[in-house]
């Protein structure tokens, strides 16, 4: 029993980190139909900015986090205007893949040039060091913090998409862009805002998740499969779906590694195949939130 409890707690903690990084990808893919393979690159850029802000400029963790998210969003907005706008829509999937892979390569090369190939870290504040006990199980304080942030993100996004004017317009534009435009919704602006939201979430995930997914230039490519898995299992565009998927995959991965470590990799991908068999469109297909 204690084993099961341990697996669930560890798995949930891992899953929440996956959720925070992946949900931004789910938003852009589900709402704007963009396969943004540069999502991991954006998360990585934010991580490097936070690392530089904390170590180079000596800013506190919270300031580095907020600063990195803002800088990343501002820095990537021109890309929406110049690059992404040309490839929106599901008819352009292959162009999207090629363009965003190209963009990823450029970002990887740029980071490698600026910061070098060695690992970088974002120092944690004292409050997030040490461990927190949950029943018989203790987990790192930093992970508990990430779980809290993940929960806050779920609620925040749900509120944003379901309860605000922005969310209503966005869902209208997703369902029928022409009709939305005819009703006077400025879809271009809406798309830009959604893109910024997706990038901002990637950025936040990159910074918060840096303890688990360490920062190095290849980050952008190394973890993209993991993020895509979460989105596929959750159902593109679904907030709750992404959360459920991330938790499920986190727990499956943890269970596999704990019970049969030598075949952990098999276990994860076999489970992924089975899940996608049962839910071919993801847990929550076609729902706004």
């Amino acid at each position, binding site marked *: 029993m204690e084993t099961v409890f341990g697996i669930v707690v560890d798995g949930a903690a891992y899953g929440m980190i996956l959720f925070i990084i992946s949900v931004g990808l789910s938003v852009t893919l589900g709402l704007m139909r963009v396969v943004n393979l540069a999502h991991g690159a954006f998360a990585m850029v934010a991580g490097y900015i936070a690392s530089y802000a904390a170590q180079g400029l000596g800013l506190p963790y919270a300031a580095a986090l907020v600063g990195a998210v803002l800088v990343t969003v501002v820095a990537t907005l021109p890309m929406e205007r110049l690059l992404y706008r040309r490839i929106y829509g599901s008819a352009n999937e292959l162009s999207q893949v090629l363009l965003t892979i190209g963009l990823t390569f450029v970002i990887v090369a740029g980071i490698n040039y600026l910061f070098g190939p060695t690992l970088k870290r974002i120092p944690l504040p004292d409050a997030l060091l040490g461990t927190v006990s949950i029943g018989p199980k203790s*987990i790192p304080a930093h992970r508990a913090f990430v779980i809290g942030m993940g929960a806050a993100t779920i609620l925040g996004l749900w509120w944003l998409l379901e309860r605000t004017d922005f969310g209503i317009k966005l869902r209208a534009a997703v369902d029928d862009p022409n009709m939305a435009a005819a009703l006077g919704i400025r879809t271009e602006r809406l798309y830009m805002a959604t893109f910024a939201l997706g990038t901002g979430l990637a950025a936040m995930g990159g910074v918060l998740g840096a303890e688990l997914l360490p920062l190095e230039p290849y980050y952008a490519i*190394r973890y993209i499969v993991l993020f895509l898995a979460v989105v596929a299992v959750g159902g593109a565009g679904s907030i709750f779906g992404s959360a459920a998927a991330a938790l499920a995959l986190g727990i499956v991965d943890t269970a596999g590694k*704990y019970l049969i470590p030598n075949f952990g990799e098999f276990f994860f991908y076999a489970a992924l195949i089975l899940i996608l068999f049962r839910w071919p469109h993801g847990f929550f297909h076609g729902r706004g939130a």
Partner: protein
Amino acid sequence: MTKTVRGALLGAVFVTASGAALCSGTAWAATIKVGVIAPFSGPFATAGQTFKQGIEIYQAQHGKTVGGDTIEFVYKDLDQANPAQSKALAQELIVKEKVGYLAGFFFTPDALAVAPLIDEANIPCVIFNAATSAITEKSPRYVRTSFTLWQNTVPLAEHMAKQGIKKVVTAVSDYGPGIDGETAFKQTFEKGGGQVVDSIRMPLKSTDFAPFMQRIKDSGAEAIYAFLPAGPTTLGFAKAFSDTGLKAAGIKFFGPGDITQEPDLPALGDAAVGITTTFNYSQAHDSDMNRQLLAKAKELFGSSDLVTFSTVGAYDGTHVIYKMVEATGGKPDGLKAVEAVKGMAWESPRGPLKIDPNSRHVTQTIYLRATERKDGKLQNTEIASFPDQPDYGYKGGK
């Protein structure tokens, strides 16, 4: 395409190419090229960079000429383990660049891939890193100046057994070197009276190590022997080890020194403190030669932070190549060149080295090190040494 056309074609090319080969075979080359295959881009770019630095440091200290011949290094990028590409690059280096020596090789399969080529072209191949014992068995033209997992692990396991440690868990990445390490440890440690209570092989792509930590905790071991490839996985593992409270619970962390390689130490931070490793080189090694090497690195590259095991692997490899050129008078003869360095002994920044005539691998001192913070900077402090360690994994003689 008819057979005659193809025959004529083949014939024509063969004549021109063999003519070229003949020319290069007899001419006295004023410039001797060394082809270096290593990762210069991608996730392992640091390795290639340290190779290059090691070569440049050596050349800055010892000049670029040997007996009138200029030694020139040609770099080829192989961003990750890809043996087919490795062979194509080696072929290009030999045929197009007319290199007299091959060197570099971070990954085992890439080094293995060139065996037929170096035999056919009679070219020596000096391996700066790739650490699977079996490589040097595949061709008499391989010489290796790095280390093997066996070489580092055997003295560590003996030391641990002598310390009175009884129960150990091994945790290694599930690939060739990891399994080498696990086997070497198990054999030696159990011979020394210890017990391996659990052997965990972790998928190479693992990002979350918490479940493994739970397993280690449950096994009731006093210590772990861990090996993972340097980089993000090691960082994740060491962090999880301290974050999940295993370190606080008093479980001791041992492993080969790759896991606390110098370029990763700043990122590892305090998670690395208290890890005990065995390895062939530490930046903190106390010798004049090492201080000179570090000073030169600082002078050339502005910082000596990157200097690590692969730097000295390349540095000493370059030394071996220089000696080979000297012994053959600049004439291309791979077997003779290799023959000349068999049994060669010299002093390196890491300590005394000797090329074992049988395995063509360096016999060297392995150091026991503790990672600690000194003057605000993390380093691997050598606390004991085990001289004259051969490659225990070499089976060629048996």
